[in-house]
C-alpha cells in the first residue's frame, strides 16, 4: 500500500472520531505546551537572576597589592605599595575583556557638618567606579574626569552619612562638609544599597575623586586597590588573566617572580547562584516531561481501546485484502498523526503561554529553540513508541475471529 493511501486511510479513520482524536491529542498538546512554557520560565528566571547578579557587580574584579617577601619577612599586603596610576592606565588601555577600571584610595576620617560629626570612610575613586559598583546617584550629580584632573574638593555622600550629618532631612547637595580639615562640597547623594552580603554597611561612605584623597589627604601615589569590571560574567576568567599579564609587565616582574598583587573575582558566587537556577530549569523540565509521557500513555490507551472497538473493522479490512503490515501501519500512522498534530498545536500553545505569562504576570520568559525542537521530537517518538504496541496487536488479529467479534 502506498504512503499516500496509508495517510488517507488513517486520516479518514481519525475523522470518524474527531472528538476522541482531539482528546487524545490534548494530552500531547498539554505535555508539549507545558515543556515549552516551563523551560521558558526556567530560562527566563535564570536570565533575570543573572542580570540581577550583574547589577550587584558580579562581573567585578578586585586587584589588591599582595603580600610579598622583603628580606625574608612577609609583609602585609595592604601596607605594601605596588599599585599606581600606571597600572590603572595600562589596564584601561590594554585589557580587552575589561569594560571599566577605577583605582581606590581610601582613608578614614571624621566628617563634620555644623555641630554634627560622624566617623566614616572616605574613598577616592574614578567616575567609572560608579559603573563598576553599580552605584546610582539619587540627587545631584557625580564627579567627572575634570574633577579628578583638578583634585576638586567635591564629594558624593552615602545614605548613612547623610542620616548622621543631616538628620533634619534637608538636602545635603550644595552644602560644604569637612573631612578632617578639608572642606568638601557635596555635589550628589547615592541611592542606598543596604548591607553587603558580609554585613558591611555599604552606605557609610563618602566618595571623592581619587586625586583629592591622594594629593590633599594621604600625599601618596599608591592605591589600596583597583576595581575593574569584566565585559560579562563569562569573561571574568579571561579578564583576570589579562590583568595579571598586564600588571606583571608594568611591575617589571621576571618570569620567576611571584605576583606582587592579587586579582579576585566573584566567580564562586556566580557559580552557586547560576547552578541554583539551572536546578530550577531541570526541575521544571522534568515535571513537564512527565506530563508528556502521560500524554503518550494516553495515546497508547486510546489506541488500544480503538483497536478493540474497531476489531470488526480490522476483520473486514483483512477480509478485503489488507495485510497485517497494512493494519499495523494504519494504526501507527494514526498514532503519529495524533502526536505530531498535537505536538504542533502544543508548540504554538506553549510559545503563546510563555508570552501571556510575561504579559500577565510580568515574569521574564525565554522560549529556547532547543526546547521546541526537543519536545517536538520527543512527542513524535512518543507517537511511534506508544502507537506501535496497539498497532501490532491489531495486525496480529485473526480475520475470522475479528469478523465475529461483538
Amino acid at each position, binding site marked *: 500500500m502506498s504512503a499516500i493511501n496509508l495517510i488517507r486511510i488513517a486520516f479518514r479513520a481519525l475523522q470518524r472520531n474527531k472528538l476522541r482524536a482531539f482528546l487524545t491529542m490534548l494530552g500531547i498538546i498539554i505535555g508539549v505546551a507545558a515543556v515549552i512554557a516551563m523551560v521558558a520560565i526556567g530560562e527566563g528566571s535564570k536570565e533575570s537572576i543573572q542580570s540581577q547578579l550583574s547589577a550587584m557587580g558580579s562581573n567585578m574584579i578586585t586587584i589588591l597589592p599582595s603580600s610579598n617577601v622583603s628580606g625574608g619577612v612577609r609583609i602585609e599586603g595592604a601596607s605594601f605599595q605596588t599599585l599606581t596610576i600606571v597600572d590603572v592606565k595600562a589596564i584601561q588601555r590594554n585589557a580587552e575583556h575589561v569594560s571599566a577600571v577605577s583605582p581606590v584610595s581610601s582613608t578614614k576620617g571624621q566628617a563634620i557638618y555644623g555641630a554634627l560629626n560622624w566617623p566614616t570612610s572616605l574613598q577616592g575613586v574614578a567616575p567609572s567606579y560608579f559603573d563598576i559598583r553599580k552605584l546610582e546617584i539619587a540627587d545631584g550629580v557625580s564627579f567627572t574626569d575634570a574633577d579628578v584632573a583638578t583634585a576638586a574638593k567635591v564629594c558624593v555622600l552615602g545614605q548613612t552619612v547623610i542620616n548622621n550629618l543631616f538628620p533634619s532631612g534637608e538636602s545635603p547637595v550644595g552644602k560644604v562638609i569637612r573631612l578632617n580639615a578639608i572642606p568638601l562640597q557635596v555635589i550628589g547623594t547615592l541611592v542606598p544599597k543596604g548591607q553587603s552580603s558580609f554585613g558591611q554597611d555599604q552606605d557609610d561612605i563618602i566618595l571623592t575623586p581619587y586625586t583629592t584623597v591622594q594629593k590633599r589627604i594621604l600625599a601618596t601615589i599608591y592605591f589600596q586597590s583597583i576595581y575593574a569590571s569584566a565585559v560579562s560574567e563569562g569573561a571574568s576568567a579571561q579578564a583576570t588573566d589579562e590583568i595579571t599579564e598586564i600588571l606583571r609587565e608594568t611591575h617589571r616582574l621576571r618570569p620567576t617572580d611571584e605576583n606582587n598583587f592579587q586579582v579576585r573575582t566573584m566567580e564562586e558566587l556566580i557559580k552557586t547562584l547560576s547552578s541554583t537556577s539551572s536546578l530550577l530549569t531541570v526541575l521544571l523540565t522534568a515535571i513537564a516531561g512527565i506530563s508528556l509521557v502521560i500524554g503518550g500513555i494516553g495515546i497508547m490507551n486510546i489506541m488500544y481501546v480503538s483497536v478493540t472497538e474497531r476489531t470488526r473493522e480490522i476483520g*473486514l479490512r483483512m477480509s478485503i*485484502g489488507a495485510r497485517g503490515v497494512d493494519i499495523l501501519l494504519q494504526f501507527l500512522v494514526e498514532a503519529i498523526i495524533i502526536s505530531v498534530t498535537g505536538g504542533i498545536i502544543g508548540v504554538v500553545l506553549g510559545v503563546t503561554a510563555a508570552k501571556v505569562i510575561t504579559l500577565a504576570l510580568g515574569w521574564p520568559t525565554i522560549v529556547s529553540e532547543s526546547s521546541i525542537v526537543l519536545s517536538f521530537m520527543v512527542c513524535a517518538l512518543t507517537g511511534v513508541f506508544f502507537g506501535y504496541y496497539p498497532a501490532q496487536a491489531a495486525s496480529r488479529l485473526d480475520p*475470522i475471529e475479528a469478523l465475529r467479534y461483538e
Partner: protein
Amino acid sequence: MNNKILELQQIKREFVMGTETVRALKGVSFDVHAGEFVTIMGSSGSGKTTLLNLLGCLDKPTAGNYLLDGVDVGNLSRNELARLRNRKIGFVFQAYNLLPRTSALENVELPLFYNPSLTASERKDKAVKALEAVKLADRLDHTPSQLSGGQQQRVAIARALVNQPVMILADEATGNLDTRTSYEIMSLMQDLNKEGKTIVFVTHEPDIAAFSSRTVMLRDGKVVKDTVNENVRSAREALESLPPADDY
C-alpha cells in the same frame, strides 16, 4: 462450462481444542464453474462456516487441496492470502460490515485502497460504477446510518463487486433482512449472475436456495447432496407476487 473457478479436493479441517480434536470438515470435494450461482446449505454445526472461511481464503485446510482460479491456496503465506482476497474474492456479510460514519462511496472504495496500482481517480470511477450497478448512484454521500438495511447490503455488494473478483462469496447475506428486501437482494444477485458473475451463497433458508442454480448440502462435515436446480425461481417474479407492502 469447464472453466473451474473453485476446485475442492478432499478438504479436511480439524481444530485442536485442548486435548480434543474437532473435525469440522471430513473430506469435502466439489467444483464450481464460472458463471454458476451455488448455494451452500446446512444446519448449525454442519461445517458451513468453516467451509466459508476456507473458500474465502481466511483459513487454510488441514488436508486436501483448494484451488481458487487455479491457485493452490494451501501453499500461500498470510500476505499472499490477503492479496488473493483483495483481487479474486468479493465478500458480502450478514451484518453488512460497513464502516460507520463513512459515505457509501468511501465504503465501496475501501478494497481498492489495498491495491497500490490504482490512482485516486480510477478508484473513484470504479466505486461509482459499482454503486450504479446496485442502483445506488443517488446515495453516494450517504453514511450507513442514513441508509436502510437493504440499501446497506447493496453498498456491501457494490464493495464486493468493485475489484471485479472471480467470485462473490456471500455469508447469510439475507439473514438480517425481511422477506421483501431479501427478494430484492436475491434479484440483484440473479442479475449479477446473468452478467456472468460466479456467486457462492451460504444460507440456511431453503427459500433463498431456490433462487440459485445449484445447491450443495452439508451435514456433519460432509457433502450429503449436490443438486442442480432445474427450476430456478426468479426473484423478481417472487417479489412481484408478494402482497403490496402494508401501510399502517
